C-alpha cells in the first residue's frame, strides 16, 4: 500500500487560476494551455499543500493521504 501524500489534479475541472501555483510554486504550476501541472514532489505533511488543495477555486485538486 502506498504511503505518503499524493495530489490528484482534474484538468477538466481546473480553470487555470494559478491559486495553487501562487501558494506553493515548488509543487504546482499552470501550463500554456491554462491547466494545472505538478512540477515538484509533494512532501508528506506539507501544510501548504493542504491549504492549496482547500483553496483551489474550482475544487480541481484532491489530496490523498496514503496509509502507512
Amino acid at each position: 500500500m502506498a504511503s505518503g501524500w499524493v495530489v490528484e489534479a482534474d484538468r477538466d475541472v481546473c480553470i487555470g487560476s494559478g491559486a495553487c501555483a501562487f501558494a506553493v510554486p515548488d509543487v504546482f504550476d499552470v501550463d500554456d494551455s491554462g491547466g494545472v501541472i505538478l512540477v515538484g514532489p509533494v512532501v508528506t505533511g506539507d501544510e501548504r499543500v493542504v491549504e492549496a488543495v482547500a483553496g483551489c477555486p474550482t475544487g480541481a485538486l484532491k489530496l490523498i493521504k496514503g496509509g502507512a
Partner: protein
Amino acid sequence: MTELVLDRDRLRSLFDLRSDVYASRGGTFETDPYPTFARLRETGPVHPGAPHEALGWTGDVFFQGLPYPERPHFSAYDYETCARVLQDDDDFVTNTPALPGEPQMPDAAILFMDGQRHRRYRKLVQPSFVPGKAVWWLENWIRATVTSLIDGLAADATVGSVGSVGRVDLNAEFCAPIPLLTITGSFGITIEEALDVRAAVTSDGQDVAILARLLIPTIAARREQPTDDLVSVLVQAEVTDDDGQLHRLTDEEVLAFAFLLLAAGSGTTWKQMGITIVSLLNHPQALAAAQADRAFLRGVVEEALRWMPTDPVFSRFVARDTTLAGVQMPAGAVIHACLAAANRDPTRWERPDAFDPFRPVKAHLGFGFGPHTCLGAHVARMEMTHGIGALLDRLPGLQLDPDRPAPRIIGLYERGPDTVPVAFGAVT
C-alpha cells in the same frame, strides 16, 4: 523616463468613492459593516435579503445581482457557505436566469457566462494571467508606471515641501494610475486616452461607443501585425463556439473582453492598494518587517485581501430550487455571497478581526472563489507588492501624514479609503 501626463483634477474626480460615479455602489457608506456581518454570520449564516438592506442602506443600488426587485434575495455570511455558492455550478449560476415569460439575457462577457461556455472563453485569456506571467505585466507596464509616478511625487516634494517633508495623497496620485495604466497599456491605449477609458467603463450608461472608437483601430492593427500585448492575444485567440465550430474572436467579442477587463482591472486594485497601504502604515511592526524585507509584503497583501476586500460581495443566482444552510430558496432567486464576512469566519481564522500580516497565509475569498475567481489576481498582487515596495524603497520614513485626518475605509459594494495621506522624508 517620460513624465506621465494625467489630468490630476479629472483623476481625482474619477477615483473618489464619494463622487457620483460610485453613488450606485453605496460609495458614501461610512459605517463599519463588520460587526453586523459577524452578527449575521452567527445568527445565520444565511438570511433573506441583500447585505445593504441588513446594513440599513436605503439608497438605490445597481451592482452585480442588484437590484432585481422582482426576485427573492438571500445572503450568506460564513466561509463554507460562501465557498459553496461560488464553486457549485449545478445549484448556482452567474448569468441571470430568465423568469417565466422573460427572454434569456445574452452572456457576451465571461463574467456572465456559465459552465463549459465560460470555461472555453476564459481559457483564451487565462494563460496571460497566471502567476508565471506576472513578470510580463511587471516589465511591460507596471514597473515603468510606478517609477514615473514616484518620480512625480519626488518632484512635488521638492516644490511643495514643508521643511524636508513631502506630503501627498496616494489614493488618486498613486493607487489609481498603477492599475489603470497597466490594463490600458495592455490594450494599446495611450496614457492620454486612459482617463477617457476609465470614464467610459464607470458610466452606468456602459459607454461602449467610446471604447469602440478607441479600440477598433488597435484591434485592426493587431490583426495585421500582432505585438506583445493583450489585444494581440485576443485577436489571435480561437474559440470553439456552441456549434462546435472554431472561430477567431470577432471585434464585438474582443470589445466585450476589453470592456470587462478594463473595468475590473482599473477599479479594484486602486481601492485594494489603498486599503493595503493604510493597513500597513497603521501597523508599526508590520511596517518594520516590510522595511527590513520586501518579501514580507506578500503576506501583507494577502492579509489585507482577507481582512478588508474592496469587493465585499459576489452575487449569483439560484439555478434550481435548493436548500442552503437550512434555508430553502427557489430557482431564480439572487444569492449574495458576502466575501468580507466569510473572510473573518472565526472557524477558519483566530482573532479574525485583527489585521495581522504575521499570521500564516490561508486561502481567503478576497478574490472570490469558484470558476469566476478573479482573473487578474496575480496581476493585482504584482501591482500592489511592486508598487508598495517601490514606495518603501524611494520614500524614506513613509508614514501616514500626522497633520491630516486619518483615512477612513468607506463604501458599501465597493470599499476603499477616502484618502491615503502620507508624509515622507528626503526622496531618493
